[in-house]
């Protein structure tokens, strides 16, 4: 299987090479993923192809190793350098290991960006984050508030009390809380990213706050456990569970009604934006702090001091699209 996949990659790469000679004017952008055959990245490729179609004179080479290793990615990058692609957009398996290979690429005039999972600053011209803490903080409270036009009590079910990501998101959420009239955050509890503790904490919330209208769980273990606890308590429809989760994990709970909607980055948009940014850089745009790079239908991305930028709000999944995305990731 591995050999077969490797063969496929080689064939694809050489085909791409031939295609490249056919349309000499086409710009070649390589989308290097952590490994082939992962739904999330297949979806990113879908977005990249969409961008290529929109731009017209771009050919996207979707490639990556067969297993999620840095060595495999280095090999792929070296072969891309030999092919003289115009840009490489990589989701890295290792922050530092890819730097020498990517530096070599940049020395040869290839534009290098990282997306989703970044590489160290010296190995890329910019990094595209799927979202940013303020955007996530705003989104999780918005998800709850959108279902509560009259306002009401909401509680937060986090991971551990010390987990950095969640704490930053919750802090950002509290900053924008005044924008959502009538929404009271009555408690923040910690499920430690354990299914049983998250379940128990949710039961505790249901008991302690009889008027609770929504539970926000910005963690994928917590949101699933909370949805199950709400279902078991017979509170489906009264308490809406929302936050950050994966469509494949949440599909059942959206269907049961325990969760009306939740959010996470959209891999299609991510692949699309990475391709657009690479195109912008090929076209002469410069990646430097404060610069704004074009992302087509996704707008622009502004780079911070580390040459990092955030794509957009997390993407909202609900009953209308969760089935479709649950097959992807």
């Amino acid at each position, binding site marked *: 299987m591995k050999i077969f996949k490797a063969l496929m990659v080689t064939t694809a790469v050489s085909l791409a090479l031939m295609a490249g000679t056919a349309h000499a004017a086409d710009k070649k952008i390589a989308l290097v993923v952590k490994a082939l055959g992962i739904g999330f990245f297949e979806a990113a490729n879908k977005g990249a192809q969409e961008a290529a179609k929109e731009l017209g004179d771009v050919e996207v080479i979707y490639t990556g190793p067969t297993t999620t290793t840095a060595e495999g990615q280095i090999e792929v990058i070296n072969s891309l350098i030999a092919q003289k692609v115009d840009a490489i957009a990589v989701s890295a398996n290792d922050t530092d290991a890819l730097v020498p290979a990517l530096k070599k690429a940049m020395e040869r005039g290839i534009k290098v960006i990282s997306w989703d999972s970044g590489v160290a600053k010296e190995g890329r011209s910019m990094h595209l984050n799927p979202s940013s803490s303020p955007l996530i903080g705003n989104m999780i409270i918005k998800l709850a508030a959108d279902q509560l036009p009259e306002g009401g009590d909401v509680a937060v079910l986090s991971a551990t009390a010390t987990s950095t990501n969640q704490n930053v998101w919750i802090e950002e959420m509290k900053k924008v809380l005044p924008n959502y009239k009538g929404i009271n955050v009555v408690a923040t*509890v910690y499920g430690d990213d354990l299914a049983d503790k998250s379940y128990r904490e949710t039961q505790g919330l249901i008991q302690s706050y009889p008027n609770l209208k929504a539970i926000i769980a910005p963690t994928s273990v917590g949101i699933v456990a909370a949805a199950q606890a709400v279902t078991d308590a017979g509170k489906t429809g009264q308490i809406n569970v929302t936050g950050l989760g994966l469509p*494949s994990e949440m*599909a059942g709970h959206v269907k049961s009604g325990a969760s009306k909607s939740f959010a996470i980055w959209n891999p299609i948009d991510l692949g699309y934006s990475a391709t657009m940014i690479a195109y912008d850089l090929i076209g002469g745009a410069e990646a430097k702090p404060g610069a704004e790079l074009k992302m087509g239908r996704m707008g622009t991305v502004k780079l911070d001091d580390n040459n990092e930028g955030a794509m957009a709000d997390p993407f909202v999944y609900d009953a209308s699209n969760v089935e479709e995305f649950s097959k992807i990731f």
Partner: protein
Amino acid sequence: MAKLLKNREILLVLAIIVLVFAIALRFPGFIEPANLARVYNDTSILIILALGQMAVILTRCIDLSMAANLALSGMVAAMINAAFPGVPIPMVILTVVALGAALGSINGLLVWKLDIPPIVVTLGTLTIFRGTIFLLSNGAWINAHQMSDAFKALPRASFAGFPILSWLSVAAIAAIYVLMTRTPIGRAFFAVGGNPHAAVYTGIDVGRTRFLAYCLSGALAGLAGYLWVSRYAVAYVDIAAGFELDIIAACVIGGISIAGGIGSVAGAVLGSLFLGVIKNALPVINISPFAQLAISGTVIIIAVAVNARTEKRKGRVILKKAEAV
């Protein structure tokens, strides 16, 4: 009265009652019968596991791999259900109980035949079991919508007003009680832990007894695996991570001596309930998450300290119940 207070089980019952009332002072809803039934239901899985751990600890061994066994069995149950939703649930349960027992027997064989210290064996199998889950599942989750409704419904189904999950733990308590007090193997667990040398002279095969104790704890972990996965409607590599410590803590609080030979079914059940009450109370009495950890730890240390004192007084008597007659 003084004699009664020396009885560990009665002391624990009193402690639990005091605890429940103390919690009710801060959160009156806690003491409602419906809530107490819910707490019992939530503790059922811990009780089932603690009963298995008790058998192992009685023989002077320890089983650190129970939670990993639970996770592996649970993942297998979920995978069978996801791949073949038509397989009847009792079949699934029988399969994972057998699987759990088989996994437990690996521990037992290593302890019996190779004479490796139990803590090392089970620490090893703990990681092997967790690793196996990853190999089986490729790190992917089995989610609620991949499980059949029947798979998720069984522990929740109500019988005579209580969920099946609670009834299963009651059945496990009854079965283990009979096993411990009315069968030769049950008495052998006590004898082997109380004094292995003397046990040999009475014709008990120490290694084989330990092997059987591990099979028992494995089978119960397998059962708990199904219950866990269907209760929380999700299976992944890390389920019940760290739960082995809760199981051992429940046994220790329940007065089961880590040195082997001393303990009772009632102790294991009460120790589990004590932990279960605390676990369920902490979310509703509004205490900082950092203090929660400290409270849980303090309680366990107090329990061990009390335990050490009572053990000293008792001395080491094997076949305690038989002697009393």
